[in-house]
């Protein structure tokens, strides 16, 4: 049996990679994807704990379903925003979006 540690480690690694992507990638689309990656890492954890946790039960999976739902919604809205931005500014490079400064 693969121990819980292994799954969690995979999750942690994916999470870190996703985080790096969020912080460093310039394309808005890839940033969105990196967020998905982080969410996936979390899903792995949820399901792993649902099986091997202190109080393992099905709720972990239910939670994952909700996460996926939210992720899907987020992707849809995020993409829509990116398209809107692209239409207005001609770019979706995150580094060009600095209107917060003004």
């Amino acid at each position, binding site marked *: 049996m693969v121990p819980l540690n292994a799954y969690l480690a995979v999750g942690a690694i994916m999470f870190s990679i996703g985080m790096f992507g*969020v*912080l460093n990638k310039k394309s808005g689309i890839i940033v969105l994807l990196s967020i998905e990656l982080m969410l996936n890492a979390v899903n792995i954890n949820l399901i792993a704990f649902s099986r091997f946790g202190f109080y393992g039960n099905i709720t972990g999976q239910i939670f994952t379903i909700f996460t996926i739902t939210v992720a899907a919604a987020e992707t849809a809205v995020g993409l829509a925003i990116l398209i809107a931005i692209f239409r207005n500014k001609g770019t979706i490079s*995150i580094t060009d979006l*600095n*209107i*917060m*400064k003004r």
Partner: protein
Amino acid sequence: MLENAWLVPLFPLISFVLLVAFGRQLKEGAAYVGIVSLLSSFIVALGILFERLGHDAENYIQNFNWLTIGDKTLTVGFEITPLNALMLFVVTLVSLMVHIYSKGYMHGDERFPVFYTYLSLFTFSMLSLVISPNLLQAFIFWELVGAASFLLIGFYYFKPSARSAAKKAFIVTRIGDLGLLIGISLLFWQVGTFEYAGVFEAVEQGLVEPGFITLTAILIFIGAIGKSGQFPLHTWLPDAMEGPTPVSALIHAATMVAAGVYLVARTFPLFEASETAMYVVATVGGFTAIFAASIGLVQNDIKRVLAYSTVSQLGYMMLALGSAGFIAGVFHLFTHAFFKALLFLTAGSVIHAVHTQNIKEMGGLGKEMKITRAVFLIGALAISGFPGLAGFFSKDLILMSVYESGHVTLFWMALIAAVMTAFYMFRLYFLVFSGKPRHNANVHESPKNMTIPMIILSLLAIFAGYIEFFGFGEWITNNGVIAEEVEGPKWIMYLSIIAAFGGIALAWLMYGRDNKVKTGEPRGLHKLLFNKYYIDELYSTVVVRPYTIFGYVLKFFDKYVIGGLVQLSVWFSKAIGKIGSRLQNGQVQAYGLITIIGLVLLLVSLTAGRLLG
């Protein structure tokens, strides 16, 4: 009657409040409010004096709690001793005269009611000062009379000279008050009370160290120096002549400036207990007497001559007190009040007529102003010590006291001062009233409400001295002050008569005979005297200028050193802010990164122990 003594200051207070509230509506009717209230006070004061004159009369004292701090209680109240009763009488009488006189003198002034308001305030404070049974209350009203005097000096507020005179008067007397404040505070913690009686008792029983008594007595005397215009704090009094002349008569001649003398007399047991303090009082008084008289010799402003004369006469009183001549000092205080008030009122009458204060622009006024001339002559004779008039008796008594106390130098100084007094008074008389007119004003005698008070006062200036023969000395000392009747050698009396006549004769020789006025710049000693020994200039260079310069240095310090430090810290925070704002570059990812780094730091710092351990 004695238990109702509080009524005496109450009437002027009521008048003050009424005039503050309704003065503007009353216009010149304000005078009646003032006069009626003062008349009531005078009647009560007279009643008190007569009751206190009775041989079996006791001192009356009553106290009320005013303020309780910790285990100490401060009281207010009133006390009637012979000295108080006498002062009440003098103050109410002179004040009443001045109130009546002012109705004519101030007629037509647009701030007429304000003048009476201030007068009422002054009279109230002065009367309350007189009946104070303790040092604290005395100090309170001591300050209040100072403030009233300040207001009245600055009555002609639009004149810059009046403004600076008022300022000077307040500040210089305040310096003296500081001494008084320190003195009574020290005394309070030493004997635990402000009551005169308590203080004297403690002193008598030897509960207070002799050195300490000297210290406090001198500090209290500093207060008196400030108020009574003694050297070196005399400079304000001549300047105070910027005020209306009735004010000069009331405050700067008869009553307030005498408060210093009164205070020393009131705390006489304290001074008596310290030989050093007595010597200081006598020396300062004696020096001031001759010093101020010498300045008075050459001044050209009629009021200033009188002012220096006042300073000199107050010096006389101090000299008397310092020479253990309690009776002499108080006696002279009493007589001086009348003739000096009289002289000022006549001066006011003259100024009223010719609209100038420079005696070189007067002359020959005697023809039109017969009454004024006559009463001025009485006043001048009285102050010069002409035999039979009030000043003669009191001055004689002072000279005797000084002689008895053994201060030979002071005695001769006093005698020379007496000659000078006679000289400058008659210099005034000759220059103002005799000879040919050197002015072109249409001169006429003052109205009745001005002349009547002058006449009343001139009568007192003639007869006030005779109370010496009715047991004055015995009566005034029965409040426990040990001061014996002075019996000096007869030649002192003759000497003082010679001094008076000598002065008058000299004045006649120089001014009365040919009635010429010297023109041209004063030279030599004359110049020194004319410029009042350059005391004002000295103070200006030694005190005022360095203080101002120091102020500007400090301003510079405040602006550049303290301000510079502030700027430095501002610059520092700005620098930090700049670093911070460079992070705020609007890049979402940069914000995210900072957040993550923060999280990392937090995690590391929180788990460092576990990670390493």
